[in-house]
């Protein structure tokens, strides 16, 4: 059987709006991925734990609170501590342009603003995962 791509979609932080995250989760399912949706108010430790148990290839974060420069690196660090440093991390939300290079340098590879067409996210995932053939 062909290997299925598994994606964890999570909302770290305190804001309680998960409509956008759910839309992306559904779009990723429709693109043929197995999407594990974990809901709102997730701590970085909870996200890393779920990513480990579910053995996902991708972690997608939705952060609308403006706290992305704090939360996203914390998730990355928590994943590294679990030995999951090869997981592709995506971030969606209202992210100022000047933050993007810093985030990417921290290993948050894909940063997507609100209203990004989901096929673009799908394409990004497929490209990123296609390269390192293990």
């Amino acid at each position, binding site marked *: 059987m062909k290997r299925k791509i598994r994606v964890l979609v999570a909302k770290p932080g305190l804001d309680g709006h998960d409509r956008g995250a759910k839309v992306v989760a559904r779009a990723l399912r*429709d693109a*043929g991925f*197995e999407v*594990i949706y*974990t*809901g709102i108010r997730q701590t970085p430790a*909870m996200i890393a734990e*779920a990513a480990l*148990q579910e*053995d996902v290839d991708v972690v997608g974060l939705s952060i609308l609170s403006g706290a992305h420069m704090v939360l996203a690196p914390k998730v990355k660090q928590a994943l590294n501590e679990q030995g999951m440093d090869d997981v592709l991390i995506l971030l969606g939300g209202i992210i100022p342009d000047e933050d993007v290079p810093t985030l990417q340098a921290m290993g948050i590879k894909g940063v997507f603003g609100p209203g990004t067409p989901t096929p673009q996210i799908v394409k990004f995932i497929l490209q990123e995962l296609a390269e390192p053939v293990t």
Partner: protein
Amino acid sequence: MAHPQLNTLAGLVSALLAGNRRALARIISHIEDNTALAQPLLAALYPRAGQAHIIGITGAPGTGKSTLVNGLAGLYRQRRLSVGIIAVDPTSPFSGGALLGDRVRMRDLAGDPGVFIRSMATRGSLGGLAQATADVIMVLDAAGFERIIIETVGVGQSEVEIASTAYTTVVVEAPGLGDEVQAIKAGVLEIADIFAVNKADREGADRTVMALKMMLNLGIPDKYQIMHHGRMLPVTLPLASAPDQQWIPPVYKTVATQKQGISELLEGIEEHHRYLVASGRRQLRSHLRAATELRMILRDTLLDRVLAELGTAAIDAMVHAVAQRQIDPYTAVKQWVAAYNHRPTT
């Protein structure tokens, strides 16, 4: 690669037995993806399994299964029992993708090293789903989890099959799903060891309980007979249990969101567990399961072998001939078997 030892059979097995959760997660993926390591892993772990009590939680969509699992697992943890959870959701037949959302209701269990939760998509495999689920259960069992809870949506035959992997099956009902008796689907009585009428804070819970009890009074079919249909391996079963040891499924009212009735439900599950062991039925179920499993694997193995030997061209030609009614399917298969038996020896 950060963990080269998790790429080999020996590395994965020893890490799993040492309690490495990443190894556990990786092994489950190997089995789900049916990689080259899947069979050797299963072979290595099989002798270590067999200790866990396996609990199936099934019921219509939205009845509160995940919330119940969250509550049950929390109580088991208070009793210092480790819990492995498998939450199965359907794969979309259109995209092949799946949206697995059961973890949302299980957040109380986060951060507890005595709990491991895995979401699983059905992946639309032909009859292989029950086997894949059974294999993942076996891995959690070998990893040392003392209670394994498997959540499935009770709509199709495959979910019923998954439930048959469990020792104790809890069927979850909720009031207000329309006509109470209608809601209690055919087949459910046969697989239920325990009923939970969840959302008992809602109108109509008592009516659902009554409807269930009435149906149960009409007589409980012997599930071992029902599971015995079809062609089985000719096995000698280890017991004929005494007729006075009949189990009558109890009905519990629960409010999962408020953790009401959960400890009673858990007691019921443990009571059923003790009953299975004391009556010898646990052993009987293991035997039936082994017989089914062997038969299934034998069938698949032979099928793969014969088809590989024939080759796609010959298969296509025969399919065409049968479709055109130039030959009937029984004679066709006879010819295939003959061709396989007379294959050139290598």
